[in-house]
């Protein structure tokens, strides 16, 4: 979690309801209730708006008018949305266009929205629209917008204040209103946060803006590898370590505050936990030879890792607090890359016990392990999807490495990312499960690519660094 994100000062988001446990859209009634409670605290509307929304929920026929996007419908229709120029108060007038640009870029990334271009906008939003004057919704509908976002921003010294509202243009109703304060440096974090709210409003699933990807790359002319972090939108790239040694295999803790990784900075490989906010570190695994963290249990209690002893790597887990070590999988083969399931009951891991590296699944505390890759070639680096229904891994096909997914029982193999002239490796799921990040390599060129889980869309996240690899997507924000 970036410092910026954590430091957003929130004025009026005290009532935001978290997403339902299933991650699916709540029922219409729950949505209305949520809207009602949300709106009650927004934008100075106070009790009047609460009352209005309570009244609205008494007329369920109105519910049909609520806009909704089904994210499970492949190739589904995108929602046309307009993001109006913001009203700029005291401070930087360029923010009037800069903020809608950031917000629009976020919305486009979701592949759920079509942006109505600003050149088509007819109504100029003014401060009066934030104090009672209604927008001309027929006008917004006429240019094709089903939803409209308006906002106003002001900067006073080191204090940034942004108010944003989302309207259903077809009904002229306020769907969402938030006021944020922070420092100018937190602008992107604030906008990402509102983008997540918009996505949640229409889909019932929290967006992933503001999440980050940790990875490794060689820095400058150094032969070593450092840890890096980049925003999921490709912004805010920064180097985390700077010791010129090998710093490898970053893995996020479930609270997004710590990275487990292997560092050679003391001369031998040691697994450290590093606080991404403060840079504070503590040693967690020194035992054994080569070692690589695989992932945390969902409750954050355990860190799973592959650790070699006498040349033979097994799967261990270590208590993050206290350091007690427990062997989970042992065998004569190399066992590495444990990825815990989202319910914490199972791990997927790599073993070459059958002669080549393959993916296996084990239930913790139960004897036996099941191979889920096809047994041929080379299958490594499993990553369990947040919903628990798929496991992504690096497979080998036609002499190339590709990213594939499979159900945890080994059925339903699907190729997601492959190219004829390079390798696609090391997949890691986004917290909403809609995307994966992976490493693309072709000779000396390497890049991180974000791809939709169905393989239909992809974009370059990071390029221009040397030898990038081991991407790990942070938990939701």
């Amino acid at each position, binding site marked *: 979690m970036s410092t910026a*994100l954590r430091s957003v*000062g*929130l004025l*009026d*988001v*005290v*009532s935001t309801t978290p997403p339902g446990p299933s991650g699916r859209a709540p029922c219409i009634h729950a949505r209305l209730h949520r809207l009602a*409670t949300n709106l*009650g*605290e927004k934008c100075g509307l*106070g*009790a*009047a708006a609460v*009352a*209005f929304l*309570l*009244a*609205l929920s008494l007329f369920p026929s109105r519910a049909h008018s609520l806009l909704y996007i089904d994210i499970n419908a492949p190739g589904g229709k995108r929602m046309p949305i307009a993001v109006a120029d913001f009203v700029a108060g005291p401070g930087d007038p360029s923010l009037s266009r800069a903020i809608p640009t950031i917000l629009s870029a976020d919305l486009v990334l979701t592949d759920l929205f079509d942006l109505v271009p600003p050149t088509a906008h007819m109504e100029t939003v003014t401060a009066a629209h934030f104090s009672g004057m*209604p927008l001309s919704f027929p006008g917004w509908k006429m240019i094709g917008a089903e939803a409209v976002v308006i906002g106003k921003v002001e900067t006073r010294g080191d204090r940034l204040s942004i108010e944003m509202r989302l309207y259903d243009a077809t009904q*002229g109703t306020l769907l969402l209103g938030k*006021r944020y304060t922070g420092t100018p440096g937190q602008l992107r974090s604030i906008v990402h946060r509102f983008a997540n709210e918009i996505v949640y409003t229409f889909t019932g699933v929290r967006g992933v803006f503001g999440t980050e990807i940790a990875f490794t790359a060689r820095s400058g002319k150094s032969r*070593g590898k450092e840890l890096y972090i980049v925003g999921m939108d490709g912004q805010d790239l920064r180097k985390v370590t*700077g*010791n*010129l*040694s*090998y710093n490898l*295999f970053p893995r996020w803790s479930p609270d997004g505050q710590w990275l487990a990784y292997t560092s*050679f*900075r*003391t*001369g*031998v*490989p040691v697994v450290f936990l590093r*606080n991404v906010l*403060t840079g504070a*570190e*503590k040693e967690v695994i020194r035992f054994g*030879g*080569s*070692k*690589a963290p*695989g992932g945390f249990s969902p409750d954050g209690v355990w860190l799973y890792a592959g650790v*070699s002893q006498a*040349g*033979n*790597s097994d799967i261990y887990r270590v208590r993050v607090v206290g350091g007690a070590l427990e062997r989970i999988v042992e065998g004569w083969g*190399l066992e*590495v*890359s444990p990825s815990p399931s989202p319910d914490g009951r199972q791990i997927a891991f790599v073993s*070459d016990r059958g002669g*080549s*590296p393959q993916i296996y699944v084990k239930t913790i505390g139960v004897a036996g392990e099941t191979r889920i890759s096809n047994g041929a070639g*080379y299958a*490594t*680096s499993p990553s369990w999807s947040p919903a628990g229904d798929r496991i992504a891994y*690096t497979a080998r096909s036609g002499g190339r*490495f590709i990213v594939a997914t499979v159900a945890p029982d080994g059925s339903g193999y699907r190729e997601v990312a492959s190219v004829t002239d390079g*390798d696609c490796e*090391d997949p890691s799921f986004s917290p909403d499960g809609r995307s994966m990040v992976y490493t693309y390599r072709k000779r000396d060129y390497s890049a991180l690519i974000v791809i939709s889980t169905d393989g239909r869309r992809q974009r370059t996240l990071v390029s221009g660094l040397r030898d990038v690899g081991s991407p790990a997507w942070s938990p939701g924000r």
Partner: protein
Amino acid sequence: MKGTFSWKWAVLALSIAALMSVGCAKKQTVKSEGTEAPPSASAPAPITEAPMKEPPPPMATAPAMPPAAAPGVAVTEEKMSQFDDVRFDFDKSEVKPDGRKTCGVVADYLKSHPQAKMQIEGHCDDRGTAEYNMALGERRATAVMNYLVSLGVPKAALSTVSFGKEKPLDPGHNEEAWGKNRRAHFVLK
């Protein structure tokens, strides 16, 4: 539009009355300044991120990272060796006949220099996953160590470390480079 809004206001008026009787306790306070903004006890599920101006102080158990330590940088440098590398096949750790010959030379040296300490580095080519290669490098180094022990070298004189695919000898991306990079490298300590 006008019609819609007067309808709304009518509903509003009714609803406010209803709200007064059931919902007064839910009246929210919107803070206009300050960043603490704790939600009232009745507020449903607040966002829990505590606003903070500065990072919290480091944990007592976690001293700040020391400046780049020489041993950490030193590991990235290729150490010259008077001995040949032992080479391996793709995804394999068997010591082949050529490698056994090299190990014989190394064993003779170590037996005639009982004070010498030898570190065996295990390396891989750059294909495949970093974690798997890290473990594979360890297995290669250990295979060489075990072979040296079988030739009579005391185990106490030997140690292993794996660099996986992180430290290629040849940066190329072809069979020749890969063959050079799949190696055990001898470093006298």
